[in-house]
């Protein structure tokens, strides 16, 4: 039958023992005596030289009785309780999945060093314990469930945090619900004490560390060359010196030392050689290694095949400026299927294929009534200003139920989004020639957004730079083979095509690729850029325990009181009386 204590703080009473010892020694202050029998004492001393200090204590009855009284008092104060043999508790351990935890656990280390002792203590709360191991992001579900604490520790030791800043509350609520009633939840985190949730036990394992790392990347074309620009940030309050270099397939640049001011940022830049499609910027490693390596690839967006208006089309002149600003597209060949087209249409008819379709008003429509232009809430119209649009709607026509009107003038639609047999169409219900839309930024941006949507939905090869853990949103053949993510930092990760939209970039910086069958769909570089996770100035080590009432309730459910407590109480009284008598006699 296990023993546990209702009031462990009562152990502080043991501190009275050194005080008693001190008092005993102080009471017996040295007294001076002139003696004539020193030779007898010296003879005695030679006999008792070994263990003399122990002898001093062994034979003072009052001292030992007082120590016994303290021990009895401590025993009563700690409220010993014996665990019921049939008591069972459920304990959920929630690991903070934010990547900043890697500086303290789960990054090649043997888990959180303090965790075994905390779990041992929690386990003493009942005869049997069922463990549940979760992570705060909930991405990987339940990491362990069972009654083997060592197995749980092993899983926790192999676990690696992979998420950026996130809200742990939902996972904690799930954990509380899973152990209810009477269970305990332990949240292991590196967050600040002030950010810790209440009502559960929290083990803060963080500590301030001096971290410096890459915090951002920008790529731009200059004079036909790709220039990269990376920011290095020092998160600490002291000046840091680091060495950095760039790695290419062909070799490595010479390491250079940089000096980073406290909380300062430094920009590094360079040119990606023509022959290289990828590179990695490396910073001398520190305790938090995620931001010490920044891989990058030469971006290669999908190319759109466009059927532009003919030269004699009435729209060609209005769309010329727009087409000049459009990147990564080409004209469709004579026999080639275009990804989308710019075309005119008759509002009374149904246009075919993806594209932007313009209605022509011939003869010219009357001046518009002056009704205001209003935009529906939609990703394509978000944050766009339309009040400068001078466009009169064409004649009334019927809208379909699946149509989404983006823009209105009064009660008449100006822009409509239609899904027509899987093809995306943007229908323009005003005459572009008589309006100022081609010069209105909102309209041009909307067209770019629409084309980007089409580009995203196109199943084709692309190369891009992403953040670690970023959702990839890749267009795949929904009826095709499984999609496989291959990365240099982890195992191959195959998913069915229907779940491809859930794929995320790897949690570690590095290069990876996505394949569907034999088709290479994406080559990418994932880099870490979450500055909140890389900042450890406020990290701290702490321990928060749930309210005393909850602990008490838990204890009372799983254990019963020491029924000998009254006897100990009587014994304490007896010992105190005896001690008083002895000390009186000794005095």
């Amino acid at each position, binding site marked *: 039958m296990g023993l546990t204590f209702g009031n462990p703080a009562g152990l502080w009473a043991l501190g009275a023992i050194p005080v008693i010892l001190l008092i005993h020694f102080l*009471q*017996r*202050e*040295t*007294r*001076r*005596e*002139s*003696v*004539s*029998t*020193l*030779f*007898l*004492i*010296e*003879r*005695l*001393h030679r006999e*008792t030289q070994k263990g*003399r200090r122990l*002898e*001093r204590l062994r*034979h*003072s009855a009052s001292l030992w009785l007082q120590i016994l009284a303290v021990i009895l008092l401590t025993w009563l104060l700690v409220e010993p309780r014996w665990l019921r043999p049939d008591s069972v508790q459920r304990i959920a351990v929630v690991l903070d999945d934010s990547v900043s935890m890697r500086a303290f656990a789960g990054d090649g280390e043997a888990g959180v060093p303090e965790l075994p002792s905390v779990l041992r203590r929690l386990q003493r709360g009942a005869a049997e314990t069922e463990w549940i191991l979760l992570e705060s992001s909930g991405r990987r579900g339940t990491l362990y469930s069972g009654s083997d604490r060592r197995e749980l520790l092993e899983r926790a030791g192999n676990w690696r945090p992979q998420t950026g800043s996130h809200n742990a509350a939902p996972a904690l609520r799930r954990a509380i619900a899973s152990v209810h009633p009477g269970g305990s939840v332990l949240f292991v985190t590196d967050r600040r004490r002030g950010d810790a949730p209440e009502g559960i036990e929290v083990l803060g394992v963080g500590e301030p560390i001096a971290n410096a790392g890459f915090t951002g990347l920008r790529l731009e074309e200059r004079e036909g060359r790709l220039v990269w620009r990376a920011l290095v940030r020092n998160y600490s309050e002291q000046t840091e010196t680091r060495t950095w270099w760039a790695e290419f397939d062909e070799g490595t640049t010479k390491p250079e030392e940089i000096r980073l001011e406290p909380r300062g940022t430094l920009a590094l830049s360079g040119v990606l050689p023509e022959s290289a499609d990828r590179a990695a910027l490396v910073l001398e490693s520190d305790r938090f290694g995620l931001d010490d390596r920044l891989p990058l690839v030469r971006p290669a967006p999908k190319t759109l095949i466009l059927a532009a208006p003919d030269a004699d089309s009435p729209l060609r002149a209005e769309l010329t400026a727009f087409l000049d600003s459009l990147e990564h597209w080409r004209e469709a060949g004579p026999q080639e299927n275009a990804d989308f087209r710019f075309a005119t249409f008759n509002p009374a008819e149904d246009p075919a294929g993806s594209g932007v379709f313009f209605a022509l008003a011939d003869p010219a429509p009357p001046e518009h009534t002056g009704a205001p232009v209003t935009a529906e809430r939609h990703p394509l119209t978000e944050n766009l200003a339309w009040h400068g649009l001078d466009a009169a709607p064409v004649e009334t026509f019927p809208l379909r139920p699946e149509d989404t009107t983006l823009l209105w003038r009064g009660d008449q639609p100006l822009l409509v989004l239609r899904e027509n047999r899987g093809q995306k169409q943007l229908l323009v219900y005003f005459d572009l020639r008589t309006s100022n839309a081609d010069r209105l930024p909102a309209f041009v941006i909307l067209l770019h957004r629409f084309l980007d949507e089409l580009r995203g939905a196109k199943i084709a090869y692309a190369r891009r730079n992403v953040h670690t853990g970023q959702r990839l949103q890749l267009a795949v053949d929904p009826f095709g083979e499984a999609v496989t993510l291959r990365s240099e930092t982890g195992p191959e990760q195959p998913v069915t095509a229907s779940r491809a939209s859930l794929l995320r970039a790897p949690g570690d910086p590095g290069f990876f690729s996505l394949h569907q069958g034999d088709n290479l769909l994406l080559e990418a570089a994932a880099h870490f850029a979450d500055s909140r996770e890389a900042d450890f100035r406020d990290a701290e080590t702490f321990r928060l325990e749930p309210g005393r009432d909850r602990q008490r309730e838990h204890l009372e459910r799983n254990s019963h009181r020491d029924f000998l407590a009254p006897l100990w109480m009587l014994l304490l009284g007896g010992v105190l009386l005896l001690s008083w008598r002895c000390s009186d006699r*000794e005095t």
Partner: protein
Amino acid sequence: MTSPFADDRLVAPRGRAVEAADHFRLPFRNRNWRGTAGNWSGAGVGSSIDFQDHRPYIAGDDPRYINWQAYARTGAYTMKLYREEVSPRVDLVLDVSPSMFHRPAKAARTWELFHFCLESTRRSQAAPRAWYLSEGECREARLEAIEQGRFELPEFKGDERLSLRGVPWRQQALRVFISDLLDPRCGEEVFPCLSNENKTSLLLAPYCREEEAPDWSGNVEMLDCETGEKRIQYFHSDLLRRYRNDYRRHFEMADEQARRHRILLARVPAEEDFLEALRTRALPLGAVEPWD
């Protein structure tokens, strides 16, 4: 080191010693004395009234002691011999090491014993000589000066050695030694020297309760009253009990040595009345005897 007992106040015990001498004396009886003429029966032939023996006359004998009645009966000159009357010799040695005086009661008892011996000697018309023994050396005490209250004690220099080897004992004298025997080597340095052929010697040992059963408890910084040596010792009841046992054993061994060397060892407690102490401690051993 200055003698701690050179204090007139310590001479006061003389009155009690004189009072005790009214009741008791040193054990002169039951002993054959030799020496100058006196009041005590000697071992040889003398002029006392105690008849001892007859022997034939030899030329040169004092004709006053011819037994004329015997001559009338036998016709031969026969000498009538009487026991000699002598003054006993008493050699008194006083241990004047500081331990003898380091408690007032013990110091008083020491002086009481010393004066008692002198007074007893005086009243018995014995021939005393006294010595002060200090640091293994002895210096004769001038009895006239003592009578005048001047003790002329030697300076004590801090040597705790107790030895009777340097004492110039007289032949046939009653050897009396007053000492507390608080020396680990007293078995070799005291008893063999005090032993007087087949005659009994006397050893009077004053002691006080503080050294027999001290009340030390806890830390005690001990200062040796003779050498000045310091020692800090923690005392608990067990250690104290063992100290008392050792103290008792020390004097049991002294008793054993005394018996072996025909020495009467009488330990005289300092806390009791002097007369009562002599009656209970010395009289049963024969260390003192009552007047006839």
